[in-house]
């Protein structure tokens, strides 16, 4: 059943032209948080998400949100019978919750990834490891995002 809130949001969205809608989404924070939860559920399914075994490294205060160095490492012997099958990284406040997914196996030697990501705002980032025994483990890190002082387009 559609709640009154869902009906109002849907109607409002239909009446407003796309370009304007993007700027005035009053539920942006809530919508993005819901998308994050949905992405999380899509990975973990009915399984239980446990904290531990995953180490997510991000600088606590970063120079620029356009390029944030990120490293994930998962404790695992990486043998044929006990290894990491996938590593997923998600955010709560970016326009899309998914950041990156790695598919690997024992040949990797170590379950790790280093890359650079875009973060739209000060927020928390979550890394999830999917193990060969079907278990899910996670870690989160908080990042503070600042803006450069002198921009080409000027201050928004």
């Amino acid at each position, binding site marked *: 059943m559609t709640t009154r809130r869902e009906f109002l949001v849907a109607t409002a969205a239909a009446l407003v032209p796309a*370009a304007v809608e*993007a700027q005035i989404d009053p539920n942006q924070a809530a919508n993005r948080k819901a998308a994050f939860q949905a992405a999380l559920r899509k990975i973990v399914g009915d399984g239980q998400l446990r904290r531990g075994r995953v180490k997510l490294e991000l600088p606590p205060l970063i120079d620029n949100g*356009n*390029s*944030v160095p990120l490293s994930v490492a998962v404790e695992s012997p990486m043998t044929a019978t006990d290894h990491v099958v996938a590593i997923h990284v998600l*955010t709560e406040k*970016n*326009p*899309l919750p*998914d*950041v*990156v*997914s*790695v*598919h*690997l*196996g*024992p*040949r*990797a*030697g*170590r379950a*790790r*990834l*280093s*890359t*650079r*990501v*875009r*973060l739209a705002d000060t927020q928390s980032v979550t890394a999830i490891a999917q193990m060969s025994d079907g278990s899910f483990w996670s870690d989160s890190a908080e990042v503070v995002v600042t803006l450069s002082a002198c921009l080409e387009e000027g201050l928004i």
Partner: protein
Amino acid sequence: MARAVVTLPAQAKRGEIIEIKTLAAHSMETGFRRTQTGELIPRDIIRRFTCTYNGTEVYRVDLHPAIAANPLIVFTTIATETGTLSFQWVGDNGYTATETAPIRVE
């Protein structure tokens, strides 16, 4: 030209875990930016990175718009045998890039 750079050791001992650093030249246009007049700039990103070792896939990455421009991917693999490591990037609008690197394993 589709430019990509890979850095890894030229030789390793059998069973040694080696680190591979890769960089691909790509703007990774998110699809969320707008022009001065308000039009959305369409998404144009690298979607997948694959590393194969003598033909066997050993590492695969699905990239989303949240990956920064000129994507860096650093990972490890076990030096199992002498041969060729092959790296492929595939993305929107028919983007592809390939790099190969030989490895000598003793």
